[in-house]
């Protein structure tokens, strides 16, 4: 089972399905008037999950990106000037687009973090398989996550080793950094190959595991609620 998260379904397949349905629903919203409902829905879901601290940590980066959209787009896009101060012109179309993009981005990231951040990578991969996606895709996801982790570790160690032996940390030593990166990639590939071998040796993808049980009533209800909410949002969006 996944790590408990408030009232959310425990089955990773249900959570993944909910996240996909809501993310596609949010992405299809086209009216800025629907954005408050979008954000409110994402916020309610996050509160139901009961992990605000984890969520806030994960939202730091997207918040910066969303703020950039809201601040920059009104200055560079659109024709209707709302306010002017010297060369700076605040345009209505840009503001609307910025708010819409930022709202959709924050809502999608919030539901994704809420529903999936507590799932370990291998459970997420298993959920993907359980929902019928090709095994290769699920394995690629799993190994990519592990591989990126390895690359990051290798680069950090190589950077420390360089620094301890007097290597420059700035961008003036680009060839040195390039060589370090190449070496890290080669080492990480070898490590990833070993991990893949270790997984295969312990029966991964051998097709012997018990197939996952059917989704429970609460899991199915969770998916139905997500689909209903996404449909409602889209209806509001069309009416607005």
């Amino acid at each position, binding site marked *: 089972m996944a790590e408990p998260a408030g009232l959310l379904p425990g089955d990773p397949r249900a959570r993944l399905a909910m996240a996909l349905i809501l993310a596609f629903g949010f992405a299809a919203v086209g009216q800025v008037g629907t954005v408050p409902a979008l954000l409110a829905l994402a916020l309610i879901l996050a509160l139901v999950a009961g992990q605000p601290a984890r969520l806030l940590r994960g939202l730091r980066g997207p918040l910066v990106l969303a703020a950039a959209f809201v601040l920059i787009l009104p200055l560079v896009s659109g024709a209707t000037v709302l306010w002017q101060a010297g060369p700076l012109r605040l345009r209505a179309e840009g503001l609307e687009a910025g708010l819409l993009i930022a709202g959709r981005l924050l809502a999608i990231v919030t539901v994704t973090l809420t529903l999936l951040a507590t799932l*370990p990578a*291998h459970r997420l991969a298993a959920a993907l398989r359980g929902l019928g996606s090709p095994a290769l895709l699920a394995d690629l996801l799993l190994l990519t996550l*592990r591989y990126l982790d390895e690359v990051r570790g290798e680069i950090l160690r190589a950077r420390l080793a360089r620094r301890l032996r007097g290597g420059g940390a700035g961008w003036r030593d680009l060839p040195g950094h390039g060589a370090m990166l190449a070496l890290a990639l080669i080492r990480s590939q070898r*490590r990833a190959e*070993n*991990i893949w*071998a*270790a*997984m*295969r*040796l*312990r*029966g*991964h993808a*051998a097709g*012997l*595991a*018990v197939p996952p049980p059917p989704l429970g009533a609460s899991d199915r209800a969770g998916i139905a609620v997500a689909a209903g909410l996404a449909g409602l949002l889209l209806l509001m969006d069309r009416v607005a």
Partner: protein
Amino acid sequence: MRALLQTVGLAVAWPGQPPVLSGLDLALGPGERVGLVGPNGSGKSTLLLSLAGVLPAAAGAVHLGGAPVRAGVFNPAVGLVFQHAEDQLFCPTLADDVAFGPRNLGLAGAALEARVAEALTVCGLSELGERPVHRLSGGEKRRACIAGVLAMRPRLMLLDEPSAALDLRSRRRLIRLLAGLDQTLMVASHDLDLILELCPRVILIDAGRIRADGPAREILGDAALMAAHGQEVPPALARSRVAGWPRERAIAGGAA
């Protein structure tokens, strides 16, 4: 006694390279513990990977329990403990990692939990099941790898440098753990004292060929043979020889 593991004329080569191993004939009986020694690059790890079915044989064959070991085909009867624990631990918690293999064998529910608990207990890790694997110590990681393999109840366990980078206490604990296992073991290591303590039989390989195969004390104690293949007589054997000298000679040597 019928052999559990048998190789006949085994040769292994990496693509586009000359064979790393060639003409290997060996047999291991059920429950036997065999040490695999040899210099760096002699082919120890390659042999273990080939026996486990990770690397295909360029020539010859590997049989386990009379059935051929085919490269790339899952075979739960053989377990490989990698040289680097990080290569083997890929799940978030120790219990998750140990459960990975049995789950792939079709176990679920109480049977799966019991299998995990059993493996953790044998390896002295029963209190650490929920600990993230990256927060285990070096010795714990090594035992976690063994637990993950043991949970699949293999008949043959292959261990690549199991004592590398372990402190004395962890190494001692590892030796006790391995000595208590019922499985057939093949242990590749440069830790010759560990081999001497754990394995009654030793296979010495060098440049991809078996150079000696026999009782551990005879092979590891043969200074000329060991030197010819870049090895040294392990300290424990060297010490026992000095202690076994005639008393007069030892005293005279000491007085001189």
